[in-house]
């Protein structure tokens, strides 16, 4: 996958309709669960 320069965390921080999901993402520290070399698909519920 070609790097876009946008991380999942930074994308979530800037999407207002995903702010609730972002809070859960931060609280569970999930970004440290994901490994950099694997491509993931994430289904993010909106607010």
């Amino acid at each position: 996958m070609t790097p876009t320069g946008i991380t999942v965390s930074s994308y979530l921080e800037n999407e207002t309709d995903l702010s609730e999901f972002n809070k859960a993402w931060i609280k569970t520290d999930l970004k440290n669960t994901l490994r950099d070399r694997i491509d993931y698909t994430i289904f993010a519920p909106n607010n």
Partner: protein
Amino acid sequence: MTEEINERKDLLLNTIITKRMLKSDFNILKYGYDSTLALNSNNYQNLSIFFKAEASIILNGKSKVIVSDIETDNAIMHKVNKIIPLPTTNNYIDIDPDLALFNKTTTDYFNFWRSKLIPKLGRTIFTVINSGFYSYDIEFIDKGKSNYENAAYNYDFLRDCHVSNQMIKMENLRTPKFTFISY
């Protein structure tokens, strides 16, 4: 929503699969299963997720993708309209089109049996796909009878589809020393 996710990390892990899946990939496959990062608390295996792509992509029969194909560094993101429910056997029997006839045999009279099919009980169910019914020389579904009558007629068949107190994966069945611990 957030409180629910915060209290249950498995709900958050249930939103993630370990491969790149664009909307076009779902559309090609039409429907099927994949694995999420969420784990079954009974055997610590990854839980499945069922997707069906028609006019929209629906996950586990409840959550609809409303914005798709958002690219980030190591993930494709799709926005969905609600939290994806954790999978249950009953849910999959209800929504998997390949199991429509099996579903019909387990409705009504057998709801008491299906109500026991929750993951923490650690059961295995061998579900027969639609074509399996068509190729059999016994009419499992009599369209002239009610679901209750059909289910009662198929009692032995349904009982034989279930293994109690044992969660069996294909890799288990391939193990030379594998044995059933119940009927």
